[in-house]
């Protein structure tokens, strides 16, 4: 649940049900969680799968410290990071990923994979993910490939001359 909340802070989505606590619900449509962030993180190919429990524990510890500093009372029925409101989750991740933070590498990597679950569905075959309506690829407007799974664009340019060439250009197209 903690990692879902983290992923949802990176690319927020809409709550799966009114009781959903992990997803803050600050955005419409699917976010990183719906895009499969947990699936990607838990895959051993990422190399961070082993450390996920530690990361969840750590981010909760940071959330408690943060809440203490801000004078926030956290709902004890959910993990501390989940108990934070969305703006506080953001503020905490900004702090953890800031240059100089001793754990920055971990949090950047975690963020990177959360983002990848949404922007490239790195745990799924792209063509299949698109066919299945993957929320990230769909939101970004990626087009569908040809039947053989390859992309080709017959129309690719305006075919027009748009500007003067730099006067010092060689005949093969290099700076003179």
């Amino acid at each position, binding site marked *: 649940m903690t990692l879902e909340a983290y992923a949802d*802070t*990176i*690319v*927020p989505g809409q709550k799966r049900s009114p009781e959903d606590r992990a997803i803050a619900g*600050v*955005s419409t449509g699917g*976010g990183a969680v719906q895009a499969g962030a947990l699936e990607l993180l838990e895959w051993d*190919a*990422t*190399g961070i799968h082993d450390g996920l429990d530690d990361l969840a524990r750590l981010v909760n510890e940071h959330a408690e410290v943060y809440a203490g500093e801000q004078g926030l009372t956290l709902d004890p029925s959910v993990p501390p990071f989940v108990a934070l409101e*969305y*703006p506080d989750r*953001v503020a905490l991740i*900004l702090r953890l*990923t*800031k240059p100089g933070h001793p754990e920055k*590498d971990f949090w*950047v*990597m975690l*963020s*990177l994979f959360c*983002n*990848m679950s*949404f*922007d*490239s569905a*790195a*745990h799924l075959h*792209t*063509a299949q993910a698109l066919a299945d309506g993957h929320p*990230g690829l769909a*939101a*970004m*407007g*990626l087009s569908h490939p040809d039947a053989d*799974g*390859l*992309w*080709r*664009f017959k*129309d*690719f*340019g*305006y*075919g*027009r*001359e*748009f*500007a*003067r*060439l*730099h006067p010092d*250009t*060689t*005949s*093969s*197209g*290099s*700076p*003179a």
Partner: protein
Amino acid sequence: MSSTAERTDVLVIGSGFGGAIAAYHLAAGGAKVTVLERGPWLESNDFEHDYKLGSSYTRAFDFVVGNGMSILGGNCVGGGSVVYFAAMPRAPRFVFDRQGSIGRRMWPGAVSRDTLDPWYDRVEESLSIAKQDWKDVSYAGGLWAAACNHSGRTANPLAVAIDNTKCVNCNWMMAGCRFEAKQSLLVNYLPAAIAHGAEIRPLHEVQHISRTSDGDYQVHYNVIHDEDYRLQAGSGVIEAKIVVMAAGAGATPVILQRSEPHLGTMPRAVGRYFSGNGERLNTAIIDEEKAAELFGLDRGDGLAYAANQIGKGPTVASWDKLDGSLPEYSRYSLEQLYFPPGLGTILAQVPDATGASWFGKEKKEILKKWTSWLTIFSMIEDDNEGVFGPPPATGNAHRISQQMLGRGNLTYEPTKNTLGAWDASDAEVKEILEKDGLAKVMPWTNDLVGAYTVHPLSSCRMGDDPHTSALDDRNELRDHPGIFVTDGSAVPGALTVNPAMTIAALAERAIPGIVQAAQAKGIAVTYGAPAPDGSRSGRKKVLPLLPTLTRA
């Protein structure tokens, strides 16, 4: 000399531009050539259109996060050429007169645009490099050209190593070209090298080099698991008379650092003076209505642009600031580029963000406009600030993911000169693209993985001064005769344009010296091969230069 080790005449480390060019010429000249390449050997049919971890897109890449600088490079037979965008301009004339951080000319006296031009010609012939026409330019390139023109600037379709009759504008160049339209080394120098007997061993990662008692070299490697690069499947040693190092500017100095206990002291410049070629990316979010209104753009179906996904990497660049009369650090080029999701999207920032700029609610909103993104790549003059720390246990990074992601020891703290040049180029991109409301622009953040380069250079550079250059002006490692470096690490500094053309030309130029050193060690090899396809006009122009390149 150990009798059990395998032997070859010339051992080439890495199969990118520096490695493939050396392998071809030496094999064609008659030497027994063995190439060790840490990545897999992928062929056209292996190049998938797939972002899934483990597909060709991640198998062919190496992304190493350092301290203040991350390097993205190729990791496969063919090296960076397999994943590159094939933009192949020559470096402008003034580049060779740069002083950079050392306060005097940093290139060897023997190298200038004039002396390099015949070697550039050879590469142009070998890779069929040609100037694109406006009709070859992608929507993104057209839009960039229109914006440049609108703000009073010129714009140039780039010289590329692409066969446009085969290109389908799929924009998957970074996963390897499925259609053999891109002139990667897999379709010219490498097959020609193999035809002349060169042996290429994929998934062989060189760890260090040691010396035999009679002055030859032993090259120690690990065999890498073909899917999970964190795993090793054995190790071995090959003896060679000549070693050509071409593991790329992020790896060559690391191998040399690790070899220091075996080979003796390395020149001071090994692992210093690294340059990221001054790269910087800006993401513009185009206002589609403005693009239609200002430039009359129309894709024929009511869309003005929304074509981020379509095309073939960079097609158009602005060279107005490549003016040799301007002071150093104020010259740069601005190139339209495509960057696929996954590797860089997270670094794009929300223009005018009020809270978090690289993640969160507002970032998601700009991700939804991804098709209207236009990416502009600046290549400024940096200060060669990068320094490699102690080498990791193996390879050039501690590998994290099964492929692609690792943590390395490069530290890069940009100086005022570099920061100022980035700022100036950012400001110009903003001025051009925000004019009359065309777009909103923000540079990629450096806060997450540092600056980001796909053009690592200079970590083992050539020069005249032993204090600031690791190689002499013929690419031989100082004090270690018989070891040559022909990759991007030999290039003395940032080039203000894409570097592969210059890396390749310098590699071509280094060959006569390597052949001579090989001959001196008793290898039966001659210089003089034509271009990989047999063309001879490039060779005609360089043969007269040989006396200037061989030692008396």
